[in-house]
């Protein structure tokens, strides 16, 4: 996934805001990338554009080599279901469906409705450590467990990119760590890139690369080592 010189203007007239001002970045397979920045920096707007939910005012986005500019809403939806898995801050599970059905839903929208769909859903849940909770409803699961179900839903269709929006923000530190470990495992697949949007510096050690965004611009890009060193210096100071 690659964004080239992406700009986005939101709103009209006096309320108009230039949320992104020419951002370029790429996600590589086998890497977990953190997109960090303060509130209002343009993280969510960039995530929406990378997730093919919002079209940029300027610039282009390529997903698996295909330029998504000019695509209609249905084409973008097709791209999302085939290439992108999403993990949301507030999980967005379906309260009336079991954990297994929530995961199976990601296959169902891909028109994968064979007898193996349920097996695949159960396997995905087993990989996130919820083999024993397949029949539980979201209200019967803890926050951490719900986010695991969301991760299982994101990966079950085997997408090439996982976009996670503040996946640990609603969790305690233990559950947050567990979720990040899962995402690190998922990012080990050389054919899959993971982008985690966060403002939590505790997630830095899990990243292969950290991109900092401020006021709609990418201000810095670091490796994990560089970021960790900088964090140590800041903590000592």
């Amino acid at each position, binding site marked *: 996934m690659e964004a080239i010189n992406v700009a986005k203007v939101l709103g009209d007239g006096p309320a108009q805001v230039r949320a992104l001002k020419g951002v370029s970045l790429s996600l590589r397979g086998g890497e977990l990338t953190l997109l960090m920045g303060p509130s209002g920096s343009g993280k*969510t707007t960039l*995530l*929406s554009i990378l*997730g093919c*939910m*919002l079209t940029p005012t300027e610039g282009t986005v390529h997903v698996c080599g295909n330029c998504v500019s000019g695509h209609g*809403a*249905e084409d973008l*939806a*097709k*791209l*999302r*279901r*085939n290439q*992108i*898995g*999403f993990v*949301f*801050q*507030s999980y*967005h599970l*379906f*309260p*009336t*469906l079991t954990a297994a*059905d929530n995961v*199976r*839903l*990601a296959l*169902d*929208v*891909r028109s994968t*409705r064979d007898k193996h769909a349920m097996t695949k859903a159960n396997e995905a849940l087993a990989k996130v450590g919820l083999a024993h909770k397949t029949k539980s409803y979201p209200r019967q699961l803890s926050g951490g467990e719900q986010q695991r179900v969301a991760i299982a*839903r994101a990966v079950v269709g085997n997408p090439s990119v996982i976009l996670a*929006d503040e996946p640990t923000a609603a969790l305690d530190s233990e559950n947050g760590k567990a979720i990040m470990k899962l995402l690190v495992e998922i990012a080990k697949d050389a054919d899959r890139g993971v982008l985690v949007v966060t403002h939590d510096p505790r997630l830095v050690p899990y990243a292969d690369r950290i991109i900092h965004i401020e006021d709609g611009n990418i201000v810095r890009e670091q490796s994990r080592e560089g970021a960790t060193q900088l964090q140590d210096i800041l903590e000592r100071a």
Partner: protein
Amino acid sequence: MPLVFTLAFRNLFHDRLRLVATVIGIVFSIVLVMVQMGLYLGFGQMVTTMIDHTSADLWIVPTGTKCFEDPSLLDTRQRSRALAVGGVAEAIPVVIGFADWRTPGGSSTPVFVVGSDLRSGGLKPWNVVEGRVESLSTPNAVAIDRSYFDRLGVSGLGARAEIRQQSVRVAAVTSGIRSFTTTPYVFMDVDRARAHTGVPSNKATYFLVRVAQGNSVDAVRQRLSSTLSDVEVLTPAEFSDRSRAFWLFGTGAGAALFAGALLGVIVGTIIVAQTLYSSTKEHLNEFATLRAIGSSRKYIYKVIICQALLNAVIGFGLAAMVGALVVHLTASTALPIVITPALGIALFLLTIVMCVASAIAAIMKVTRIDPAVVFTR
């Protein structure tokens, strides 16, 4: 089970109170339509019951006759001319008219006299439960329906009363021959009917034609039409249609029934649309999530339409039960509600169309959904 169905089912049953409100709305609407259309069919059957129970190939009626109860008269010379037409086996006179029935207690009530040549059996009472049709040939004999005993002030077979100051005796009792005008039918011999209604002996209301074996009804009809003047020659189906059209549309009764049915459809559509819309609005976040994870619009529409169809099936099932009860309760009334299999199927299709049409507002709401809201909620 398809996940679309599971999702629709769970969405629907998630809020039971709303489901109950929706189902009540559908049941109310469909029962209203069912009753109106059932009345329409029942009324349609009632107004043609005499024609439908007559054994005739053709009816000779005065020109311009609008319905069976029309009191215009034919001259019996027309009968002689009809009998002279090739292929006519019989031309049975029928005399009808209103008369005054005086009960043994002295009170009086209007009745509708139906007289026919009973030997030919053109228009004789049916569903006879007491006495015999043949006994109507005996002096003063009449047949009445048992549902009118109280009105006519009689207690059954052998009871006596007066019509036009002439004595009559109940010689046969029928069951279920009710008049939509609520005026009781009184069957008797044609000559006695003339005497009781004041119709001259050289007049009759109709002639029932029976075509001789081996002759085409159409050909005989054409010959009769060209031979007779100031009359119309109708098939029983045509006369039924004409009577039905007069009573249902000439009087506005049918329009009122249809207006009631239309009202039912409108009310039902609005109720279902409102509840489906609010349900969709409540689940908007989930639909946005579906859209975000890449579902097509078609997939989401399927969920909403599936919800609408579930509403339709549940609502119609309950409405059908209420309808069956209403049919049972009105079966022996003056105006029974009739629900034919065709009407049942039509109502089921109407329920489905109504519920799916109700989904349009919800679908329009979902169509405008922005999947990016999942990042901000």
